[in-house]
């Protein structure tokens, strides 16, 4: 299912949301009008050091107090507001989107190497599994997620994403299959710094979910994509793999190809496959994952979903269709299609 697009300005230059809006709308053929969303990195410069915790409330007066209480238990809310939205005849506002800028208290999780992230992750799982009517859908620093049920252009206008700027944008146009369109099911999916857009269906979801849940994650969005965000968080943040290898764990080379590698490489890939057999994603997919210092795009091992890339200067674009990239960047310099399972990485210049 779905159409995806992503862009990073590797020099850190910012772009507003109008370009990605038109690129994603160009791919309406890939969606069904039941879900669309955007992620932007660098969205909140004035609160850049705080976790931007975004929550969908079914009814503010019923669930917000419980969320507030949970946040206060673990740190300080330095600012909070309803996410501004603008009436749109094609979008029914079934949730109130809210954002908190939050500073966790690291002393409350002394046994952790990354206490702040772990506190926020714990909070996300806690809220999503125990507080009815509240869903945390974004929890990274300086990251904004804007999603709802509707066509991409309507969702963009509903949040006026052109008013936001950032150095990374992701966009997703959803064609739901396994779950009906609902706001929480729209992409991008986010956890901490990770955001994921995904086209395809992960046939190994049952295996992946049981695997990731054994590490304390809780899948609450009824869709296969959220597991990708958690897998990246686990593999990269907690297990310390670099993104290239994380991709190799999720879409590993075939044994037949491993057998032909030199011995050192063989050892590495055998270990990856043995260790991460349950994390390996199967079925057709094209995915872009973002984190604050870059984006990575990749497809399944036998290339069952499309993915095309383009560059111009410092900007790297990754999308389901070349035309979408050209809408955003008519002067594109180079266009290429990555090999199956090979990551395309755009890093923010350090």
């Amino acid at each position, binding site marked *: 299912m779905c159409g995806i697009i992503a862009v990073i300005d590797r020099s850190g230059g910012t772009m507003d949301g109008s370009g990605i809006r038109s690129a994603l709308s160009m*791919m309406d053929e890939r969606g069904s009008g039941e879900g669309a969303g955007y992620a932007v990195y660098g969205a909140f410069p004035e609160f850049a050091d705080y976790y931007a915790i975004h929550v969908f409330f079914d009814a503010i007066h019923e669930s917000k107090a419980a969320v507030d209480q949970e946040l206060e238990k673990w740190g300080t809310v330095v600012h909070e507001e309803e996410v501004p939205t603008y009436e749109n005849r094609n979008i029914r506002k079934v949730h109130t989107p809210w954002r908190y800028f939050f500073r966790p208290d690291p002393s409350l999780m002394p046994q952790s190497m990354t206490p702040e992230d772990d506190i926020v992750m714990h909070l996300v799982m806690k809220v999503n599994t125990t507080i009815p009517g509240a869903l945390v859908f974004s929890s990274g620093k300086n990251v904004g997620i804007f999603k709802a049920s509707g066509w991409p252009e309507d969702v963009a206008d509903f949040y006026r994403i052109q008013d936001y700027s950032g150095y990374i944008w992701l966009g997703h146009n959803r064609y739901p299959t396994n779950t009906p369109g609902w706001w929480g099911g729209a992409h991008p999916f986010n956890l901490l710094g990770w955001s994921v857009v995904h086209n395809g269906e992960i046939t190994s979801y049952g295996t992946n979910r049981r695997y990731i849940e054994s590490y304390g994650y809780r899948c609450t969005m009824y869709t296969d994509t959220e597991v990708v965000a958690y897998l990246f968080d686990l593999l990269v943040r907690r297990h310390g793999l670099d993104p290239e290898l994380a991709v190799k764990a999720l879409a590993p080379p075939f044994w037949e*190809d491993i057998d032909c590698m030199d011995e050192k490489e063989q050892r590495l890939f055998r270990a990856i496959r043995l260790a991460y057999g349950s994390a390996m994603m199967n079925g057709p997919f094209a995915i872009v994952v973002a984190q604050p210092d870059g984006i990575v795009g990749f497809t399944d091992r036998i*290339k069952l979903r*499309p993915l095309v890339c383009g560059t111009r200067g410092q900007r790297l674009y990754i999308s389901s269709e*070349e*035309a979408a990239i*050209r809408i955003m960047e008519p002067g594109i310099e180079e*266009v290429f*299609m990555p090999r199956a399972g090979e990551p395309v990485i755009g890093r923010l210049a350090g």
Partner: protein
Amino acid sequence: MHRVTIDASGMHYTPLNRRIREAVASGAETIEIMNVMGQRFIADGVRGDVTIIIHGVPGGDLGMFMSGPSCIVFGNCDHAPGNTMDSGRIIIHGSAGDAVAHSMRGGQVFVRDSIGYRGGIHMKQYRDKCPILVIGGEFRSFLGEYMAGGLILALRDNRRYPVRERGIGSGIHGGRIIMRGDLLNERCLGVGACQKPLSEEGYRMIVPLIEEFSSHFDADPDTLATDPYIEITPTSSRPFASKYTWE
């Protein structure tokens, strides 16, 4: 000469195809479409002897079920140009996505640059209809998968750019894949495919295609025609026959 120009800016593919059909019905010999940006199914199911010139980036399935027209594309194509095409010609001045010429039954597709995965999958031939796919640049894994007939000609020199794709001709049970260069590493070949140097007869067959390719894209036919070639063919027209027994 009757010529029709269509500006496709912001136009959905259905009205665009309607315009094409109208132009064909009115006797146009050339239809020039400007500002194409992602429109799928251009010339889908269109019949007739007409040249359609496309400027921009057409969406997927260009020329699907097409019977007769020639499409000349100045830009890259998305997935599967020539899908289940019956006859006619698609000439792409650029690259194309996955599954180019999928299930193509007749006619010709020329791609100046590269194509994605599964090019020429399940092409098939029958009587006078023999589909041909000519690729100037890279191709990816599973080229000619399930191939049941027709010809794929890859002009990229595999001596200079070694092939590292897998599953070439996987399940091929008809037709042939001809490649410029030396025999491939066996592990590039798919189930049921075998390779050998190209025969004299094979050379005679590709020479006109090389000439045509060169004339479209301004390549040098002499270098192309004098290099060594190999061909990949089915080991049998019943590749999986030995898999089954009756109850």
